[in-house]
């Protein structure tokens, strides 16, 4: 689940795991309300806004959580998958931010759940922790587990997900495979200053979305900047200044949100 800050990702996860009640509609997990103990026993959850008392050790709290589930993973395996083997005897209060994030991952997987809900799991992880996390996610997915995670990094979603749901302001604006989404989201931003004021015919029909155009300046989003430039030159537009940069996610979302129902 991909979206900028404030898109409603955390709220969606909270609804799915039964931490919040929907004002409209209903949520079902394995055909049951998500608050049902039988449903909860099959899911693991990692939240952003949660904590734990710091005086237990890593191994102790994982053992306590294992007791909540009918068929938990062996403690050592859960710790290894989270990359916490060396910290097993450490008190939770002594963990770094990244290690703490790994602990929440260990607590989410220790019950060997069929479905995992992870809210921004890689926030605060260092490079090494992130690598271990990615490999664990891939192992779990290969074992047939369903993993739902939120992120605001398009690259992270592309790397890990088979299906990406883009939400913004609480609305689904795209639901596609990474390849489809990438084709739909313009990856480059073209900022240009022309030798003369630009008119509508100059920009119409280019493989680009116009972010802004005023006087001799325009900002476009496109996946094919070379084709855009060829088109402009073909229409006799001279360029005084040109900059092509990678579009950031915010702009890509803007383009998706404004996607017209029918092509112009």
């Amino acid at each position, binding site marked *: 689940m991909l979206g900028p800050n404030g898109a409603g990702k955390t709220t969606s996860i*909270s609804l799915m*795991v*039964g*931490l*919040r*009640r929907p004002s409209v509609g209903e949520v079902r997990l394995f055909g049951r309300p998500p608050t049902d*103990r*039988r449903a*909860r*026993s099959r899911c693991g*959850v990692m*939240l952003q*806004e*949660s*904590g*734990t*008392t710091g*005086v*237990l050790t890593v191994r*102790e*709290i994982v*053992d*306590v*959580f294992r*007791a*909540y*589930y*009918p*068929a938990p993973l062996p403690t050592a395996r859960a710790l290894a998958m989270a990359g916490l083997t060396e910290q097993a005897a450490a008190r939770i209060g002594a963990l770094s931010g990244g290690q703490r994030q790994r602990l*929440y991952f260990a*607590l989410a997987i220790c*019950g060997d759940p069929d479905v995992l809900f992870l809210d921004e799991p890689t926030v605060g992880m260092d490079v090494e922790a992130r690598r271990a996390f990615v490999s664990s996610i891939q192992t779990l997915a290969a074992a047939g587990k369903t993993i739902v995670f939120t992120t605001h990094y398009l690259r992270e979603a592309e790397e890990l997900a088979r299906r990406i749901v883009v939400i913004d302001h609480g609305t689904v604006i795209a639901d596609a495979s990474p390849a489809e989404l990438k084709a739909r989201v313009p990856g480059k931003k073209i900022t240009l200053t022309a030798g003369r004021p630009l008119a509508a015919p100059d920009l119409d029909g280019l493989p680009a979305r116009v972010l802004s155009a005023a006087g001799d300046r325009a900002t476009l989003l496109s996946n094919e900047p070379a084709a855009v430039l060829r088109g402009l030159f073909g229409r006799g537009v001279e360029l005084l200044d040109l900059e092509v940069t990678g579009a950031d996610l915010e702009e890509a979302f803007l383009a998706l949100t404004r996607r017209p129902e029918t092509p112009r």
Partner: protein
Amino acid sequence: MTAARAVAPLGRMLLVQTWSEMRIRWRIPAFSLTVVALPVLFFTFFGLPFARQTRPDGTSLGAYLLASFAAYGVGSVMVFGFGIGVATERGLKVDVLMRATPLPPAIAIAAKVLNALVYALLSLVILIAYGTLAGGVRQDLTVWLSLIGSLLAGSVPFIALGFAIGYLCGPNVAPAVANLIYLPLSFASGLFMPLSQLPGFVRSVAPYLPAYHYGQLAWGAVGAGTEPLAVSLAWLAGYTALFLAIAIRAYHREESRKFG
């Protein structure tokens, strides 16, 4: 899939959860030391000098004072343990983490109560041993057992009071509020010194306070009670209902704010 269990056994869950609560409490010296040491300390100052005297009705003053501090001690385990404990966990957002697990809230609460009862028992055993050895307070074993039994069973209103404080107060405020409520309450109920030595105003207020009737359970166990057991129990039940109502209200208010 094979016909594996759909959920984990609740009995084992309760056991593991209680053990975890006990370890957490034990590793917070501010709690474990306070609940065990304070009643002993108070008894040393206010009880030991008079431990071998006899009250006008012929019962042992030492046993009377020991029973008073025993009641104070168990009440403090409940009020401080639940009040500060629940407020701290809410501050750390442990409640959010636990709510997403298959652990039923009833088991989580039962584990906290069991844990508190174990610490209360520990505090009682240490205080009684200290009073016997250092103060020469002599009572039959059945008297001590009756004291322990009635104080543990009668501690429910203080558990409810602790929950009310824990849900109404934030983690920084809860210790102060718990002290501001519990210390004057204990004092005005005659748990620190006999009511006969307190000002007339306090004596007239005491019979309306929960700790006074809790004290009556303790004094009754050592043969120095001044009201029928049924009256004490009725007052304690009434206060339980009141504190529970406040706690449940605060819980629902927070629940609709945080999880609505």
